[in-house]
């Protein structure tokens, strides 16, 4: 989401926090119906993950993901949110895993795909201010405080993850050259996001939800396992498989590539959810 109020500072801080708290309470008292608190609807939202290059390592006990994400956005500051298991650790790690995998596969990663090459130049950004939300209330409070807002159908996705015992993590990022033009959003590339959690099975990431900008997501995803596997990606086709070595350990790899649609897509030129819509 674009953060229309990225920072709260000085004497206004107390008022903003109180106001956000009041609106959150009002929304909760209204059974999370946005029409009762229309201020919560996101305005002019235009931010999406456009492409993702992920290396998933599963050693039979732990899932470790290293990612390079390419986001598109119109605005000065953004946040990227997603559900993770509550026992996951999340950090920025510049271990060069993606580069090493690509080197051994003689691949250019995302640039192997014509859809990605068409996008043009990206700006490098870093994630910062990692935050964790344990309840819908926490999450909505933060989104109101930073004037990011939300959409009811997107919020329901997070509500369902929280109901299943997951937490929601959020990272901020900001381009050095922001865009104000919807037709020409800034493309931002962030490398180094790492998520790790214990699980005896390979667990894939959810499909991204449409944020008003990119209807599809371009993927290069590589699964590394310590034993041969038939595990396939839920949507992407298998492009190649074999063996490679990483940190002196041998892995079987399966690479999946392609383009998938976002969840929650609407027709062309149809606006996002807004107050008092009925259909």
């Amino acid at each position: 989401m674009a953060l229309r109020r990225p920072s709260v500072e000085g004497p206004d801080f107390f008022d903003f926090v109180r106001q956000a708290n009041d609106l959150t309470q009002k929304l909760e008292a209204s059974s999370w119906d946005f029409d009762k608190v229309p201020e919560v609807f996101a305005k002019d939202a235009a931010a999406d993950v456009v492409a993702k290059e992920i290396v998933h390592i599963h050693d039979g006990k732990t899932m470790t993901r290293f990612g390079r994400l390419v986001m598109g956005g119109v605005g000065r500051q953004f946040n990227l949110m997603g559900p993770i298991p509550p026992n996951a650790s999340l950090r920025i790690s510049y271990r060069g895993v993606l580069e090493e995998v690509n080197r051994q596969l003689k691949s250019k990663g995302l640039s192997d795909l014509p859809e990605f090459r068409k996008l043009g130049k990206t700006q490098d950004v870093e994630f910062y201010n990692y935050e964790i939300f344990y309840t819908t209330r926490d999450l909505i409070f933060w989104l109101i405080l930073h004037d990011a807002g939300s959409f009811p159908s997107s919020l329901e996705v997070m509500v369902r993850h929280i109901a299943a015992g997951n937490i929601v993590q959020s990272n901020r990022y900001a381009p050095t050259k922001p865009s104000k033009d919807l037709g020409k959003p800034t493309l931002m590339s962030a490398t180094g996001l790492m998520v790790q959690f214990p699980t005896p099975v390979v667990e894939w990431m959810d499909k991204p939800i449409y944020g008003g900008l990119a209807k599809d997501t371009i993927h290069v995803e590589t699964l590394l396992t310590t034993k041969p596997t038939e595990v396939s990606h839920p949507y992407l086709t298998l492009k190649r498989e074999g063996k490679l070595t990483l940190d002196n350990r041998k892995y079987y790899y399966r690479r999946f590539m392609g383009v998938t649609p976002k969840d929650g897509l609407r027709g062309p030129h149809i606006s996002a959810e807004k107050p008092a819509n009925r259909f």
Partner: protein
Amino acid sequence: MHPRSESTQFDLFVRGEIPSALAGSLLTTASRRNKERTLFSRWHDSQADLIRLDLVPGKPGRIRAFFLSVDPYWKIPQPQRRPPFYATQPNHGLNAKSDKLWATNLLFGAPLEIDIPSWKPRRLLRRIVPDCESPQISSTSHFAWSPDQRYAYYHQSLLNQSDELVRAKDIAIVRIDCETGSERMWKLLPPSEDSDPCGANFHSAFCYEEYGRKFIGLLRTGAILESLKPHMPVTEHEVVPMTASTIWIAELKEESSELQATLLPGIRELGGLALSHLDIDATGGDGFVLYANYKQADVAEETHGINIYGEHPSEVSEHYSGMTVEALNFGLVLRYEKRSAKTSIRTFNRPYQPGRTSQGHSWLPINIQLDSQRKRLFCSFSGFRPRLLPQHIAKAYPDVAVDPQRIRYVPPLLMRFEAETLVPDYDKSRTYLSYTEPMAFCVAGDASKDYICTFSTETGLRIYLADDLSRVICHAVSPLLMNWRDSHFRPDPAHLVFSQTQ
């Protein structure tokens, strides 16, 4: 298509607790599809894979999955094989009793009987044999059960292609005695005011008793097929609109070889499309309370061609092989009570209002099931993906189809209703609804406590207390559920049933 019936098994990773009341098996069906979006197959037709999940209670307990890949020509002699008219493709309905499962297609072919403990196919329920003129058959997807659960009933008919439309021929009612295994068949005569063989297909059936007499009810969807074969080439075409759904009622007479159907009053008058799924309270032997849903979708059609925004399929990456058809507008849930002298109809239909998500919606209702006390009704609604509604289908329904400029994505929903009133079971904590839930669910448990199990191959299995849909008590996943080699299972399974045979 895979040439054999084969099986695989593996464990799921379980988080949370499997309640002791759920010691048993969950059964579902999956449709195997190629991931290439450039390929087309219609939603009825797919390699069918049947999934049995064996639940061992505990914290976390254990869940083991068993896959059965079904040969569509299982035990059919070579000369009788007439591609593309398969004998069975059980990728939709599940009818379970004791150690037997009868799995069915949405529309085509014969039910396949599977032995649940061994998870192997046992026989085809093909009482009517197709011929050159009528190369395919249709059977009820969701069987009717006698109030004592001893007898299962389904319809079967031939389908033939005459002129531009498909017509049903030789409609029969088949009864299986679950105690003895014996079967009998009646010829079914259509009601005089609803005798058009086009659209005479029946997705679900139910039984009830009244004044000591036994009856069967059949939900006639009204779907009109233009072609028995998949569309070739896949392009826009003229759509023959469905007729309003009806319910046929026939008294089951042991002494007769023919049953005369009549129309249940008040159903055709509702004007709804694709009356499909049901649950029934037929206790007491004096009539019934029927809960059923209208899809408001042309279920005879296929999702292909230019969409309602004029976008070519190549521009719409949501397209996938074997897409279900999208609704034309929001659907309707029906409560029809016929007890003694009393007849009443209640309905629930609601658009989606993003600003009032606590109200729920009724876009494309799928599953419908009463709890064990018959006090609460659970319904799943698939929602709406506007870019997947073809222009040529919407054009055939100018008075029904949604305005493309006023519609957006509608998220899937599972909702609990008060059965008596058909009003959502509102509370401040929103324990009565769950958005973004898979469509396949079942109510399971024992007399003391009901649980809701939801399932999709991608999301896995979620278990809720029926009282509280705001908190998952168990979640189980495996990547091996999602794929068969490099194909995947789409669309998500529609149904899930609980069986305690192990």
